[in-house]
C-alpha cells in the first residue's frame, strides 16, 4: 500500500495534481498533453497511467466513467490529515509517533 507522502514525493505526481487543478476531470490523453506542454514532462502514456494508479490508491485521485469515456478527478481529502496533524492548533500537543 503506497502512502500519501510517497505519492507526493514524486515531482511527476505533483505535476499531475497541478494539471488537474488547472482543469478537473481530464482524459488520460489530455493529461499527457498538459504534462508535456505545460509542465515540460516527457512521460510515456504508460508512465502517466502508473502514476495515476498510485494517486488513486492513496485517494488523491478518483476516476469516473461517463459512457465510453474515462475522466480523472482530483480529491484533496487525504491532504486534510496532513493539515490536521501539523497545522491544526487543537492537535499541537500530539505525541511523536501518533498518526
Amino acid at each position, binding site marked *: 500500500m503506497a502512502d500519501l507522502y510517497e505519492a507526493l514525493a514524486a515531482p511527476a505526481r505533483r505535476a499531475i495534481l497541478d494539471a488537474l487543478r488547472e*482543469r478537473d476531470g481530464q482524459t488520460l490523453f489530455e493529461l499527457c498533453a498538459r504534462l508535456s506542454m505545460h509542465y515540460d514532462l516527457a512521460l510515456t502514456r504508460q508512465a502517466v497511467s502508473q502514476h495515476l494508479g498510485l494517486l488513486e490508491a492513496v485517494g488523491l485521485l478518483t476516476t469516473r466513467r461517463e459512457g465510453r469515456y474515462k475522466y480523472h478527478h482530483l480529491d484533496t481529502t487525504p491532504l486534510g490529515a496532513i493539515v490536521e496533524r501539523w497545522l491544526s492548533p487543537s492537535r499541537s500537543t500530539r505525541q511523536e509517533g501518533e498518526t
Partner: protein
Amino acid sequence: MKIVVTSVFVDDQEKALSFYTGTLDFEKKTDVPAGAYRWLTVVSPGDANGVELLLEPDQHPAVGPFKTALVEDGIPYTSFRVEDVQAEYDRLQRAGVRFTQPPVAMGPVTTAVFDDTCGNLIQIAQMH
C-alpha cells in the same frame, strides 16, 4: 506518391455521412456501391480536389476493441485543422456535439477533442 484518401472507421456509413456533412460541414465527394457497403468519401468545404476522407465500415473484429480502447483514454483517432478552435468548439457544442476536451493551448497549437458519434474521438487543431 501522394496522399489522396485517408480514412476513419465508422459504425454506420449513413449516420457518418449525416454527421460529417450535416454537422461538421464536409462535402460528399464519392458515393459508389462496394460490396455490402459503399466507397463513401467527403472533402473539406471549398477544396473538392483535396484529400478525401473515406468513411470506412468498422466491421473487422479487430476494429471495435481498438476504437473502444482509444476512446476510453480520450485519444483522438485523427486530427483536423481549423481556423479558430474556440469558434468551432462553440458552434459544435450548440449543435449538440459532445467534447471530451475543451480548447487547450498546447504551445504551437490549440486543440480540442470531440466525439464523432460513429465510435471515434476527433481532434481539431488551430495553428498559431
